[in-house]
């Protein structure tokens, strides 16, 4: 599973067009064995962009009926940044009940888990999984995979930001001196414990530096991050 996941994330990493992300999200959906997986970006102007496995008829219907305005998932996630199980949202309104019934009729599934994403400059996106299993099984699934899914969600989002028309390269891509130190020592073949010891920091803090450097470099894993740092001339070893 782990290597399968990393392979899929590398597909996302290599994506040069939004269509490549569609391929990746379908593979991820299969890998997690859920009914649907969707990445959904909503701009401040109400424009929608994304990729996912919902049927074309449901996507068209969602837009035509302007469900964005009443969808409790979108409305609920706008005010939160913690992942949400759909059962925790308020579906009690008449419009919301009708929307839910329509979604289930179109095969969305009655269980859902959505991760709100807050990006730069007030950007907002959602990464959602939906399925048809009982409550206990779904809760166990969420517990087991939430951390991986949070990382995957943000990974998708960073890639989507690259495809944004008229985008200016994100500032702050430079590595901090501590991140350079950590990546350099890793590139020299030091173990994490040795790196932490050499820099007089805990392994926990080292993890934060590596994770932050990994994200800045748009890398799928540490090895990949080290390779990118070397190829971009950010570290010398």
């Amino acid at each position: 599973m782990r290597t399968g996941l990393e392979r899929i994330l590398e597909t996302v990493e290599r994506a040069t067009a939004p269509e490549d992300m569609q391929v990746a999200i379908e593979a991820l959906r299969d890998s997690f064995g859920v009914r649907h997986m969707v990445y959904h970006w909503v701009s401040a102007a109400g424009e929608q962009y994304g990729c996912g496995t919902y049927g074309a008829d449901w996507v068209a219907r969602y837009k035509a009926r302007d469900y964005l305005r009443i969808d409790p998932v979108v409305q609920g996630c706008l005010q939160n940044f913690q992942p949400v199980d759909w059962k925790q949202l308020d579906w009690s309104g008449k419009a919301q009940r009708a929307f839910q019934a329509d979604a289930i009729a179109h095969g969305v599934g009655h269980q859902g888990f959505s991760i709100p994403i807050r990006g730069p400059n007030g950007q907002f996106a959602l990464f959602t999984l939906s399925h048809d299993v009982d409550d206990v099984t779904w809760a166990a699934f969420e517990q087991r995979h939430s951390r991986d899914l949070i990382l995957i969600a943000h990974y998708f989002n960073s890639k989507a930001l690259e495809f944004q028309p008229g985008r200016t390269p994100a500032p702050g891509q430079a590595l901090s001196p501590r991140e350079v130190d950590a990546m350099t020592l890793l590139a020299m073949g030091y173990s994490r414990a040795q790196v932490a010891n050499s820099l007089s920091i805990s392994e926990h803090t080292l993890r934060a530096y590596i994770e932050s450097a990994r994200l800045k470099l748009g890398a799928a894993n540490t090895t990949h991050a080290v390779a990118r740092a070397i190829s971009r001339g950010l570290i010398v070893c």
Partner: protein
Amino acid sequence: MLRYMTTEGLARCPGLRDAMFRDRAAQFSDRLGWAVAVDAAGLERDQYDALDPLYVIWEQGCGRHGGSMRLLPTTGRCMVNDHFAHLNGGVQVSSPVIWECTRFCLAPGAGPHVAAALMLAGGELLERQGLDHLLGVFDANMERIYRRIGASPEVLGSAGAGRDRTSLGLWSLTGGARARVARRAGISPALSQLWYRRAFGAGSFCLQPA
């Protein structure tokens, strides 16, 4: 008790909310002399309070505010990256597994056990939200308090000296530190978990509708 609240939740407890903003004015404007905006009613609020943060509040009896902190994800707009990047060599911190913790405030007269209780809540969030770290800015006095309660952060950088020193640090609050703050707060881990579950529900991540 420890309460985890969004802006929406605060609106249902206006007394507690205003007490928090008043105590923040006392700490950051009166005591520390920071250039924060305090309105005519004596409440300190800034632009980050408008971004739907998550608040953790230590509520004393009768809905009184004992202390609080404010959390925001570092992937979106946040205070540390907007105003304190110079403490980290000018580099922004942006990670889905790091949340910033700002406006860590103790009500006048609140003891170190309140700081410990808030840190205990930080530990719950780290564990249950799948986070690696909390990232925070603090002054020399708070640094001393964190040390006293056994939850010193790993300092990334500082500016100023003596009482005026401002630092940026990371908390991971794993095993030993979690146990120390629980002991210092006088709260059992079981009780802390109960308060978390009351706010978030069993096995879930997002705040329950109250």
